[in-house]
């Protein structure tokens, strides 16, 4: 089996260059690649285009990259809860492209499945449709949307093995599997890294062929955005 293990986050992201396009897994702050974000902060790589469903919060997740002015453009479906984001957007320092969440996911999947475009019903008749080719199939209108073309995908999984196979935990799965398929180079950080052979082949969410580099992360904070509980 091919060994995909690298030492740490800094090694994993060392060749990400200024101006490149990177995908980052996660939904809200759930399932985000915390260790690689820290390494990007240390590397101070700038002018990044980030494809990620959200943009973090002011002091966590992609919000940290925004604070250090490392992001040129965000491609997301929802960017609330972030004051610094708002400031940079209004001042023109930051570009943003908003994409319906399902279209975002499907454009990742398209890249991973070698589909050049997909047809999406989301946004038909809205400003999202402006400038896009439309087509009607069986009486329903669709927008033609292109597969993403990202230099790197950075994902977070729960368990991984040395061959790059990944298993996600609970709803921290979200965009991670589709982004893992979509990167020209895919970097995976995992909470638990095990030798090849310890994971059941039937239970792999992302086969190792999609993963170029894997490492075991540490000090996961896993911040909760909306703690909602009930009383016993």
């Amino acid at each position, binding site marked *: 089996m091919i060994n995909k293990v690298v030492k740490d986050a800094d090694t994993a992201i060392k060749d990400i260059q200024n101006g490149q396009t990177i995908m980052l897994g996660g939904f809200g*702050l759930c399932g985000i690649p915390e260790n690689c974000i820290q390494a990007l902060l240390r590397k101070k790589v700038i002018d990044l285009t980030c494809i990620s469903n959200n943009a973090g919060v002011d002091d966590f997740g992609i919000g940290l990259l925004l604070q250090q002015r490392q992001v040129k453009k965000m491609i997301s479906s929802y960017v609330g809860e972030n004051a610094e984001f708002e400031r940079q957007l209004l001042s023109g320092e930051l570009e943003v492209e908003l994409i319906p969440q*399902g279209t975002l996911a499907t454009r990742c999947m398209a890249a991973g499945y070698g589909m050049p475009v997909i047809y999406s019903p989301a946004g038909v008749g809205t400003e999202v449709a402006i400038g896009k080719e439309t087509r009607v199939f069986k009486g329903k209108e669709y927008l033609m949307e292109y597969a993403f073309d990202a230099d790197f995908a950075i994902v977070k999984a729960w368990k991984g093995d040395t061959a790059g196979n990944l298993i996600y935990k609970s709803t921290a799965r979200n*965009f991670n599997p589709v982004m893992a398929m979509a990167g020209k180079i895919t970097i995976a950080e995992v909470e638990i890294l095990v030798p090849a052979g310890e994971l059941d082949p039937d239970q792999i969410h992302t086969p190792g062929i999609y993963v170029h580099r894997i490492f075991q992360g540490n000090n996961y904070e896993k911040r909760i955005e*909306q703690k909602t509980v009930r009383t016993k």
Partner: protein
Amino acid sequence: MLDKNGIAKRIAKEVKDGMYVNLGIGIPTLVANYIPDGINVVLQSENGLLGMGPFPFEGEEDADLINAGKQTITTLAGSSIFDSAMSFGMIRAQKVDLTILGAMEVSENGDIANWKIPGKMVKGMGGAMDLVASAQNIIVAMQHVNKAGESKLLPNCTLPLTGVHCVKKIVTELAVIAVLENGGFQLLERAPGVSVAEIQAATAGKLIIEGDIPEMQL
């Protein structure tokens, strides 16, 4: 006139046994509290979960288990987890039977605006455009008029659209209204103590009133 919980309670009656349902943020979330015993439904959360359970008990919350509103939640016996592409795939393939969501405006031909106010900071559409473009049955839960006292049921939406010709029904603090296939708001039910005239006054779009309009049964 209904409060938020009243609107949720009335919408809960639209939920039938065996349905897969997606609930948006706000009033729609409250609907889950009013689904009667014996009605088995499965709640879909578009971040990748079927079978959304209640909030966890204090201390049992799991950062890896949240809903589309980013709230900590639980799973149920029979739940399943999947990625975002499959989640919207099942929405697009119309496997989700009913979508309930909030709105800022609905037009008499079923257009909906609920994601953007010009001049205000844009947060993004999230999954709303996908949901309204795909769901076969969409119920809007909202206030009949906005804070300025203006009707939110309009001949045409004035805000940027989320989707076109998609809303099937609207439940407000005043009324239950069907959006007709060929346009128009058909008044189905009045909220307790609300008159047809009050509803008419609060509705800017074409309101169709046929026969006696019954009061809601809650």
